[in-house]
């Protein structure tokens, strides 16, 4: 890509951006949210057309006017949210739109054989082509998408946050396949917020900021700090700000907790000002612990004490009244009402605080929300703006704001920095630290091991619905935690 520009009305999203990827190379594209990465990907895949600049493949300029052009030029994109049709089988998905047929009648056995071949090529021979795509795990669905891309002769493979929903083992499997593809001469453009992964798998890296090209580096010649500085535009003093809080008395005590058949024998306690991390593979029951504590899943056994008083919420409203907050994993579906304003979202949980006899005192509400916007540094022009207009990181801060109108005694966090860029992450860590300093006990589920290690005081590791151990964050390592999370599992 050479000198590519794109503007929406007066807003210049991309300005003279150059990007080149060689065959047999894994190239990282990095930048904070809003830096122009998505626009660039959409231009490459034909969803948008560039205002200026050109795209060359093998030195020849090409025109990508529609998504079908991209496909015929050998460009395939694998989106963060996968695009398989859940009700159709793997074969049907793989050949969607170019079914093998004679006189309009499908040649099922031929498609099945071909599909098996492509699946084998991405190391996924274990996937049954006749299975419904929706029954596969996210990791396997991704393999099906990669197989589909290869079957379309993709020479440029674009992967947008491919590891966001994968377990550590699935990530390793994916990386192995990526290295295979690289050896076959495929060019891979890899978009991710996860620095560790980029340094593990990529060869070169291009950084965008505010629509401009900041620079291109070879991975071997750069380091974390330089990349972060390139993205953020300033020195980010610490990726994980330190917390100096002496934990107080026990706030939350959980004994032998079980839900209906998925988790059992969970015991832990969290002190005021302490962060307990929960690590483990996806499906190990981490989120279930939080949901059970919050009254979303039925508890079948065990005892929970909040400040020494028994807690048995029948629904979220009860848990909230007892002083528990829950920042859920899926911002869009569970965290925010997208069509409502920042103000109405931020005040939703504790609306009664600004109300008398069911009537909202809008002046008090506005004042409180403005205070939260200041305190959390939510970047929005106006608190009346619909929350969906905000960037991911700022939306996540609105989710935090919902719970902070009255500081919770216990705050449950499920993947609190998912889809948030480096700068936004650091700000969220600051918020977590401030809450802890105020005496809140925090339970944080996260799939990002560096985050769990740096932010937690202690780490509870889950394995197949059971506790695999609790580790002191200062005296453990990623390796020890992964070993505990996977011990005895066949993956």
């Amino acid at each position, binding site marked *: 890509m050479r000198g590519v520009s794109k503007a929406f009305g007066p807003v210049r999203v991309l300005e003279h951006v150059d990007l080149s990827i060689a065959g047999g190379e894994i190239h990282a594209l990095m930048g904070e949210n809003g830096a122009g990465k998505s626009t660039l990907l959409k231009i490459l895949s034909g969803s948008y057309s560039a205002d200026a600049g050109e795209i060359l493949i093998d030195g020849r300029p090409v025109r990508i006017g529609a998504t079908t052009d991209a496909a015929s030029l050998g460009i395939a994109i694998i989106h963060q949210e996968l695009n398989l049709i859940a009700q159709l089988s793997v074969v049907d998905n793989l050949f969607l739109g170019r079914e093998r047929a004679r006189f309009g009648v499908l040649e099922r056995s031929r498609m099945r054989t071909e599909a098996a071949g492509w699946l084998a090529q991405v190391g996924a021979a274990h996937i049954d082509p006749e299975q419904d795509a929706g029954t596969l795990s996210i990791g396997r669905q991704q393999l099906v998408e990669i197989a589909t891309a290869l079957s379309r002769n993709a020479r440029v493979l674009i992967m947008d946050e491919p590891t966001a929903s994968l377990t550590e083992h699935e990530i390793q499997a994916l990386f192995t396949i990526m290295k295979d593809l690289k050896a076959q001469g495929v060019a891979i453009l890899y978009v991710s917020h996860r620095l560790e992964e980029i340094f593990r798998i990529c060869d070169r890296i291009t950084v965008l900021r505010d629509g401009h090209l900041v620079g291109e580096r070879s991975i071997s010649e750069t380091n974390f700090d330089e990349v972060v500085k390139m993205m953020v535009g300033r020195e980010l003093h610490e990726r994980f700000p330190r917390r100096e809080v002496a934990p107080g008395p026990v706030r939350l005590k959980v004994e032998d907790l079980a839900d209906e058949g998925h988790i059992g024998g969970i015991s832990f306690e969290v002190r005021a000002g302490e962060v307990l991390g929960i690590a483990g593979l996806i499906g190990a029951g981490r989120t279930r612990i939080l949901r059970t504590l*919050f009254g*979303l899943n039925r508890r079948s056994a065990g005892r929970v004490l909040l400040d020494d008083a028994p807690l048995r919420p029948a*629904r*979220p*409203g009860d*848990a*909230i*009244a007892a002083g528990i907050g*829950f920042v*859920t994993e899926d911002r869009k*579906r*569970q*965290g*925010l*009402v*997208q*069509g*409502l304003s920042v103000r*109405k979202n931020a005040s*939703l*949980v504790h*609306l*009664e605080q600004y*109300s008398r006899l*069911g*009537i*909202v005192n*809008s002046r008090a509400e506005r004042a409180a929300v403005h205070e939260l916007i200041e305190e959390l540094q939510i970047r929005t022009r106006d608190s*009346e*703006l619909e929350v969906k*207009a905000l960037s991911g990181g700022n939306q996540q801060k609105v989710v935090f704001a*919902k719970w902070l109108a009255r500081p919770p005694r216990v705050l449950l966090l499920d993947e609190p920095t998912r889809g948030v860029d480096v700068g936004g992450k650091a700000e969220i860590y600051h918020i977590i630290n401030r809450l802890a300093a105020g005496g809140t006990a925090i339970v944080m589920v996260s799939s990002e091991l560096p985050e769990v290690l740096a932010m937690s005081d202690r780490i509870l590791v889950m394995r197949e619905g059971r506790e695999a151990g609790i580790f002191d964050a200062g005296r453990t390592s990623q390796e020890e935690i992964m070993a505990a999370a996977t011990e005895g599992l066949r993956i």
Partner: protein
Amino acid sequence: MSVSRRETLQRLGPFIALLVLCTGLAFLSPDFLTVANLFDVMRQVSINAVIAFGMTLAILLGGIDLSVGSILAVSAVVIALMMKAGFAAELATLIGLLCGALMGAANGLVITKGKVAPFIATLGMMTLLRGVALVLSQGSPISGFPSAFFSTLGGGYLGGVVPLPVVWMLALFAVFWFLLERTVFGRHVYATGGNAEAAWLSGVNTDRVQILVYTVSGVMAAAAGVILTSRLNSAQPTAGAGYELDAITAVVLGGTSLAGGRGWIFGTLIGALLIGVLNNGLNLLGVSAFYQQVIKGSVILLAVLLDRVPKTE
């Protein structure tokens, strides 16, 4: 900035359309812009508007209430039977409204506890309650109520000029505006309609919100039944058939999204007035009843299309 300005303009679209229509009619027909005619239009609109206020809440939740016409009929028949049996008109009216609340609550319970889609639940209730109205009245109209109180409700005037149904309509508009804009309940309606799961996780008792909304819709249908029965001095078991569609039309014309979470009560009032003025104008201009349907249908489609177009960008 341009987004919010465009949005405001769009929200005022129905209002502007109403002004344009009124101006046009004022030029075309000398009878249109008279105090008597304007109050006449508003009185004709009042029954639909009152039902549509309740319907707005149901649609804001992403639901619908198809049973309003049947609830209207049952309430009307109950009130008429009670008055015929010698109960005081005031008591009969109160019981009639209460019946509306109970029928609405039944809708809400089937939808939340039975987990039935609102369309299906209220469709079933529509048929069931129409049957109840026919059974109670044995299929024939009940007419002739001596109570002066009761005949004033739908036929009286405030200060000799403003028909009481118009007063009820405007008063209820004010109540609903306050309810939606200023109360915790109103906020919870928007939140539940916009994203029920997020609302539930934020501690909103979404089931209770839904039951309350359908209860309110039932009360509004019953109130419309009171006005209608009082004006006609007769309760018909077949009254209100098709009223649900008029109410839905008013809500949608007013810019409330059938997907839920987005809309306002002012739009519904304007939507109801728009339909009323159009009816009145076509009558004044002597347009045949057949063409009236064609024109009204076209206006509805045009309004909804205009509402859609700018949103695609």
